[in-house]
């Protein structure tokens, strides 16, 4: 009986926090509501006898991803959204119609499912860490290795996105014929101008850019 009450409590908390994520105008309040959703979902995972997934949910989602999102919100100093007038008038009836359609589809699927009773944490070994580790390293070894490659891709991608474009120092000699550089890399004061600077000698480059005689030797 307590499990049903816990389910109702945490499900209500999850739905309330989810509606708050969408309703709030300030992104920081949305982020805090989303943390509430993650924590209530972790409690629901415990009622489903999946303690490993519950712990990983708290550590990874609420503890790493949301911290990153809050960092970015604070870094960019995001302000509240202003109220805007929707230009498309038929959007709301279409949204309600599609929402009802999806509700009908989900109701049909949900009533067709037949399952046994829910497992209890004390008499199951499906959700404990040992069984997940065994499955991850024997039957699902290939997805595990591919996931590690995916993380490597994410690291390289994030690093290359976050770097500012490097400007050449004034004492760099531009070797003719080996590179065609965009203008904004060569001239530190130029705005983002990707037009190419092509020439044969360094003096010609200086003439094109208008910085002749200004380089320090």
């Amino acid at each position, binding site marked *: *009986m307590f*499990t*049903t009450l816990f*389910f109702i409590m945490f*499900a209500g908390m*999850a*739905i309330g926090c*989810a509606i708050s*994520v969408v309703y709030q105008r300030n*992104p920081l309040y*949305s*982020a805090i509501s*989303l943390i509430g*959703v993650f924590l209530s*979902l972790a409690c*629901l*995972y415990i009622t*489903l*006898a*999946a303690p490993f*997934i519950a712990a*990983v949910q708290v550590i*990874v*989602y609420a503890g*790493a*991803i949301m911290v*990153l*999102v809050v960092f*970015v919100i604070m*870094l*960019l100093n*995001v302000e509240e*959204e202003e109220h*805007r007038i929707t230009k498309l008038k038929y959007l709301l009836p279409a*949204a309600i119609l599609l929402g009802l359609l*999806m*509700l009908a589809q*989900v109701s049909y699927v*949900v*009533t067709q499912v037949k*399952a*046994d*009773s*829910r*497992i209890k944490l004390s008499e199951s070994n*499906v*959700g404990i860490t040992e*069984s997940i580790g065994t*499955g991850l390293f024997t039957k699902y070894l290939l*997805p595990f290795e591919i*996931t590690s490659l*995916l*993380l490597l*891709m*994410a690291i390289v*991608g*994030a690093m290359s*996105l*976050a770097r500012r474009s490097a400007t050449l120092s004034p004492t760099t000699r531009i070797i003719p014929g080996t590179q065609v550089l965009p203008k904004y890399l060569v001239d530190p004061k130029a705005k*983002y101008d990707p037009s190419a600077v092509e020439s044969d000698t360094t003096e010609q480059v200086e003439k094109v850019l208008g910085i002749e005689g200004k380089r320090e030797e």
Partner: protein
Amino acid sequence: MDELKQILAAGPQLQWYLALSAILFTIGVAGVVIKRNVISMFMCIELMLNAVNLTFVAFSSYFRDVSGQLFVFIVMTVAAAEAAVGLGIIIAIFRNRESLDVDEANILKL
């Protein structure tokens, strides 16, 4: 009253978890469509991913198969990688446009 006690004693059913997951997913989709801030849209995408995670864990629990929870593990890893790269893109967009409004980001030119 008797039926209520019976339902309470039997424990939560699989259908309840699926319905909750569908509701969370719908709220996430509504958020992605309604929201104008890029970071808020990203958070609603994470909400959708979590709704799917709940479905996987519910099925894994009721059918006594660990594959669902393994897939949830991989989905969480993918979500973490996507968060890192997505937030890097958001910062790069903000650096060039000084605005996080998706309605204003309607041309590819920076």
